């Protein structure tokens, strides 16, 4: 048993294990989506579930996203707990009406009498040259619309605990996994996401950020794969004598404003790192919170490191130029420190 307590898992395995545990515990939970059955999910998030639970609880769908996402809403309203995968977040446009006009609004529009407890999970992120329609993060788009919870894990431990919590949440939860964190054999994957994961069921509350690295000089607020770039930057900065605190938000909705503010009150400097587009997104939201609620603590302008306002390009040097990198983060850290 001692070896099992230090068992390390990839994020893909952690996600499928979380779903497995909840399916075993709750007969209302089922999975549907494209290639979630025998294939096990294009990104491995449902590996092994079809074999264990069969086609009645792990349902392959046609490429009819409006129908199966809307059906999940209807099934949830009738008492089931669907987990729906839509392969890439970039594909949500075809089903957006069911998400932002129905899933997100029905609880409110019904005065609280209808709820849609379901998880909509999807892959996001760049780093393997899949270009503009398969590389976005877009979590800011969903966080913008009231009524959707938005979860973005950065490592296997969080992925499992957040998934179990998401399945149990009485609301629609958008669960984003970064393709470059999953531990897939066929694309680059960040080893930092492979961490010790307990075998048993556990939850991580939605709306609680994680301080992944303590520091006193600069706060980096970030999420998803960028957590690891931020930690790398913090490690290099430490050599130069700059102490960087890295806050992994883990969820955008609910947002742990308290942890952001208390970190700022300690460090007085803020860098936001976001793999989403720069404008009108997470980085602007965090900067606004700092300006509204912690301006008197800031000793330097806020710096944002995000994707400039261009689609994600294909070619390797072009893609690498727009995705936030460790050197760009380090530049921002240096700027706010020397200001």
């Amino acid at each position: 048993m001692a070896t099992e307590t230090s068992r390390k898992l990839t994020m893909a395995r952690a996600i499928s294990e979380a779903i497995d545990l909840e399916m075993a515990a709750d007969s209302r939970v089922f999975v549907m989506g494209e290639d979630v059955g025998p294939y096990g999910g294009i990104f491995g998030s449902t590996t092994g579930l079809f074999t264990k639970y069969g086609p009645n609880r792990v349902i392959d769908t046609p490429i009819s996203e409006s129908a199966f996402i809307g059906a999940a809403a209807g099934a949830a309203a009738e008492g089931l707990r669907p987990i729906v995968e839509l392969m890439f977040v970039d594909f949500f446009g075809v089903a957006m009406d069911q998400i932002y006009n129905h899933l997100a609004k029905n609880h409110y529009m019904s005065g609280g009498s209808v709820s849609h407890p379901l998880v909509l999970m999807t892959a996001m992120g760049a780093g393997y040259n899949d270009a503009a329609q398969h590389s976005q993060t877009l979590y800011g788009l969903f966080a913008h619309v009231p009524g959707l919870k938005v979860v973005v894990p950065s490592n296997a431990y969080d992925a499992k605990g957040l998934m179990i919590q998401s399945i149990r949440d009485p609301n629609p939860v958008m669960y984003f996994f970064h393709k470059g964190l999953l531990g897939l054999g066929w694309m680059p994957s960040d080893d930092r996401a492979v961490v010790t994961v307990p075998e048993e069921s556990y939850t991580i509350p939605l709306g609680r950020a994680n301080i992944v690295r303590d520091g006193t000089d600069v706060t980096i607020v970030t999420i998803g794969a960028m957590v690891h770039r931020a930690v790398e930057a913090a490690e290099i900065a430490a050599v130069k004598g700059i102490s960087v605190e890295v806050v992994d938000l883990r969820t955008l909705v609910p947002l742990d404003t308290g942890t952001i503010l208390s970190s700022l009150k300690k460090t007085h400097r803020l860098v936001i790192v976001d793999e989403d587009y720069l404008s009108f997104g997470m980085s602007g939201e965090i900067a606004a919170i700092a300006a509204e609620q912690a301006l008197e603590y800031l000793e330097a302008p806020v710096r944002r490191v995000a994707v400039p306002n261009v689609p994600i390009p294909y070619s390797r040097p072009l893609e690498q130029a727009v995705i936030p990198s460790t050197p760009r983060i380090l530049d921002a850290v240096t700027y706010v420190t020397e200001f």
Partner: protein
Amino acid sequence: MDSKQAVFMYEQMLLIRRYEDQMAQIYTEGKSPLFSIAAGPVPGEMHLAAGQEPVAVGIGIHLRNDDAVTAPHRPHHIAIAKGVDLNRMTAEIFGRVDGLSHGKGGHMHLFDPQVHFSCSGIVGAGFPPALGAALAMKRQGSDRVAVAFAGEGAANQGTFHESLNLASLWKLPVVFIIEDNHYAISVPKSESTAVSRNSERAAAYNIPGVYIRDNDVVAIYEAGKEAIDRARRGDGPSLIEIETTRLYGHFQGDAEAYLAQGEKDEWRHHDPIPRFRDLLLANGWLDSATDQDIQTRVNARVDEAVGFARKSPEPMPEDALTDVFAETGKEAI
């Protein structure tokens, strides 16, 4: 159809008509001399369904409280036939605290989970949730069914085709009802749809498709019974398209300049309610004294609902900030 059912359906049709006529009146309150959609006790868009009563009633008669229904932006007739609480529905349309959604939904967003009724203001959006309700019912091993109502304009939405395919593929207990009222707002069916009857599209999804002409409540009753029985037995989905008439405009304030001259008069002269009354009288299922009693009862019922709504207070502004999320352990279901 026995006499008791027929008289019940007749009364429901009258209730819907009275309700829509009253709503048309009330909607004008506060909107003259200058018409403003935002003014008066009932603001916002108002889509009335007078003339479409046979659709709602001929299908609704076969449904139980625990069957699910999704309706479109023109929902009152379907809601009434499904047994939605009329007082709370009316209060919702007035935007009052005793409304189904305490004033957060309005006339296009009526939700009554007690009778598994919901609607949406987005054309074609009701097909997928009905599919999902049917999926839940099948998984739960019940004999409940789901019915999605939508206009003929919605049959050109992707959701219609995606949902028919999936319903057939998964053999779900769902019935799709298309209300062909001839116009998608102003665009006639012939200008929008490549087939003259959407029911023909059922063949593409390997399910039964029936077209019912002439707003015929008896034929709707028969077709509805067959489709709903079939779904309840576990034999899968059906599509029924029903020719009906929209006696008011698309919404209140619609000048209806797109209608041919005399088209509306023709519809009014062919009103389904007097036709059904004549049938009941001819069959000896109704006499004029009973008819009078029904009229009185229906008028009183609508008056009661409107009175309930008018008496209900307006919501407090701060209530706008609640109900975005369900609290854990307080799921609606």
